[in-house]
């Protein structure tokens, strides 16, 4: 028997694996594809390289006034110098620590929600929705426990943006649940009222709701009852968002099979018990991604409060760029604000996608 000598395995030809093959199949698969790749490369060359050069390579980072800016690239000195204003608005310098505590607490409470099987997840979730708003309210407003009172017209910047979106979501969620239940109720009067409410707010632009809240709300109330501007804006936003939230939750309620309702009824549960114990836990879980998406929309919509004279993040930037002590810095300001909003929205949308994957059990091929 002849010896069979094993020769070393030949590696696959380079047309099948390796960087060359990847290039061929992904970038130059056909003549049309090659042309598209060239167009894409041109876009990268014409758009990305100047932007990177402007934002990083020729940018100025250090310094404390306009002389530090060479004007060849972005003048980030401006953003760094005005960062306090962009974050805290007109909040008194001496009280920044109160806002910082809230930011830290917020981060600490959100983090466990991102991690699977984090300890005390349920507890921190409930605390986030109930205890945290109270603590934050006390710290921000002051006036008790020996804290200096700070009126709401001093709030601004990122702080105000976060306050509005947080209050918006916390208040809109329960209202949205009630409206969604009402819209699916068997009582015609309740159903009509809820449907009319939802369709009314969903049909008009938020800006007109804010106008209405700031111009007409004082007219609606008896003499003497007057809220401050922030509260009026919040009422408008909560009304508006709760209508959108209701539609999201209604989607979840409709997705629950009828058998669940019947099972709850045959156990002898009343309406509220069957909703609270059987239907809503399932329905809400189904629409968590939708709720997060609504929240992203709300977070972006908070910028609209600048039209009624509140200083949110965008408005602080908007008012800082006209400062004559600085050269033309509007682009830097808006890029900074856009980047902050982008970070928040993008991470929330990633979170929502991840949740969707986790909750999607089955039917995936």
């Amino acid at each position, binding site marked *: 028997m002849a010896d069979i000598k094993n020769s070393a395995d030949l590696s696959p030809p380079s047309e099948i694996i390796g960087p060359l093959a990847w290039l061929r199949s*992904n*970038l130059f*698969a056909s003549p049309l*594809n090659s042309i*598209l*790749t060239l*167009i*894409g*490369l041109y*876009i*990268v060359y014409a758009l990305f390289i100047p932007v990177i050069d402007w934002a990083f390579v020729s940018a100025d980072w250090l310094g404390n006034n306009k002389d530090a800016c060479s004007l060849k690239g972005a003048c980030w000195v401006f953003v760094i110098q005005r960062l306090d204003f962009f974050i805290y608005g007109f909040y008194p310098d001496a009280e920044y620590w109160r806002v910082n505590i809230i930011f830290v607490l917020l981060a600490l409470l959100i983090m466990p929600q991102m991690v699977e099987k984090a300890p005390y997840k349920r507890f921190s979730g409930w605390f986030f929705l109930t205890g945290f708003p109270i603590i934050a309210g006390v710290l921000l407003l002051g006036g008790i426990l020996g804290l200096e009172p700070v009126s709401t017209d001093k709030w601004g910047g990122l702080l105000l943006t976060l306050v509005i979106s947080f209050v918006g979501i916390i208040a809109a969620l329960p209202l949205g649940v009630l409206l969604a239940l009402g819209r699916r109720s*068997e*009582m*015609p*009067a*309740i159903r009509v*009222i809820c449907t009319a409410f939802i369709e*009314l707010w*969903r*049909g*008009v*632009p*938020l*800006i*007109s709701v804010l*106008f*209405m809240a700031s*111009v*007409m709300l*004082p*007219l*609606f*109330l*008896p*003499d003497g009852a007057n809220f401050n501007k922030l509260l009026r804006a919040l009422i408008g936003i909560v009304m508006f968002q709760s209508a959108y939230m209701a539609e999201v939750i209604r989607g979840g309620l409709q997705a629950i099979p009828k058998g669940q309702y019947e099972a709850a009824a045959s156990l002898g549960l009343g309406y509220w018990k069957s909703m609270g114990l059987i239907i809503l836990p399932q329905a809400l879980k189904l629409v968590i991604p939708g709720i997060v998406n609504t929240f*992203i929309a709300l977070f*972006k*919509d*908070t*910028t*609209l409060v*600048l*039209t009624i004279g509140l200083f949110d993040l*965008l408005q602080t930037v*908007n008012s800082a*760029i006209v400062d004559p002590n600085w050269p*033309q810095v*509007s*682009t830097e300001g*808006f890029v900074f*604000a*856009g980047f902050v*909003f*982008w970070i928040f*929205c*993008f991470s929330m*949308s990633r979170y929502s996608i991840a949740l969707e994957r986790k909750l999607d059990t089955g039917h995936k091929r």
Partner: protein
Amino acid sequence: MSEDFTSRGVPASKPPPWNDPFIRSMFFQVIAVLLLGYCFYSIFDNTLTNMEKRGITTGFAFLSEEAGFGILMSLIEYDETYSYGRTFFVGLLNTAVVAACGIILATVIGFIIGIARLSNNWLIAKLATIYIEIFRNIPLLLQIIFWQIAVLQTLPGPRQSLRIGDAFFLNNRGVFLPDPNFGKEFIFVISAFLISLIGAYIFKIWAKRTQEKTGRQYPVVYVSLGLMIGLPTIIFFLVGMPLTWEYAKLERFSFSGGANIIPEFISLLWALTMYTAAFIAEIVRSGILAVDHGQTEAARSLGLRNSLTLRLVVIPQALRVIIPPLTSQYLNLTKNSSLATAIGYPDLVSVFMGTTLNQTGQAVEIVAMTMAVYLTFSLFISMFMNWYNKRVSLVER
């Protein structure tokens, strides 16, 4: 031995009135209606007393008073002497024009980007993803203000305009284009176009019937395009080219003549388009992905070419998924055009709910009219959506 249970003396269960479902539901509904009625009554009452105190008369009489303020851009004749009612229509038309342009542009760009994201080409797909993720996650208002303040206002003045030839100029006062002047004979060109439109339609029906009868296919698209472009062009030259262009001319400080598109319009339209296109792209992508792969395979095994597979099998089914969210994006775009207020583009909210309201103080009437406009828009769009859904929804056994 069938016996009725109730007849054996077991009482028919009749709950006490406070546990009777019907009575309970009536009770709650009456309470809800009464509460709501009281709410409305007290709001109405408070508003009346408050307005009386501020000396505002209610009613729509103010609409015929002279407005006395100018508007930056108007599609219909308007100056300070026109009435407040006229400002309503000026604003409404400005909203309509920016929304219509935005819807067309956003649809085109959105479809291109959405398809690009599904491309086999790695680079193109990544670029489309980057576009979507950037524009979707930055507030629209910020984008509008960015284009207006950081881009258009930093453009050079009229003397240093960016230009294409002697016809198109771009500077910090907006875009200047040649203004078309249509001669009297242009009506013939328009009627030729309408006739060719009808002709193309008849040809399409005839071609379809012939195909069903004989199986022969005609190039419907090319023939109709040729008809619709060819006939008006021939007529245009026959009647002696009744179209002249008035070019914008640089005077001492600014341009005169020509058509001017104000920068506010450009930045609003541009931001609305970019923002909505990112959402439309995602809708298009998910619509195409929603078509089952088996459908493509089935079409292939029937022997359809690639382009026919796409046209006859994939796209009609994808549209079924795409159209409903697409219409709600159109509605969003229309509502979002009200952000014009922030940069001073004279749309309905900015002109009517802003300037007119400030001048007259008729808050209730003006807010109600403005909201009614948007509500009508959204009502029509949702009616269309329901109609469309019914038309295209699968008829199952």
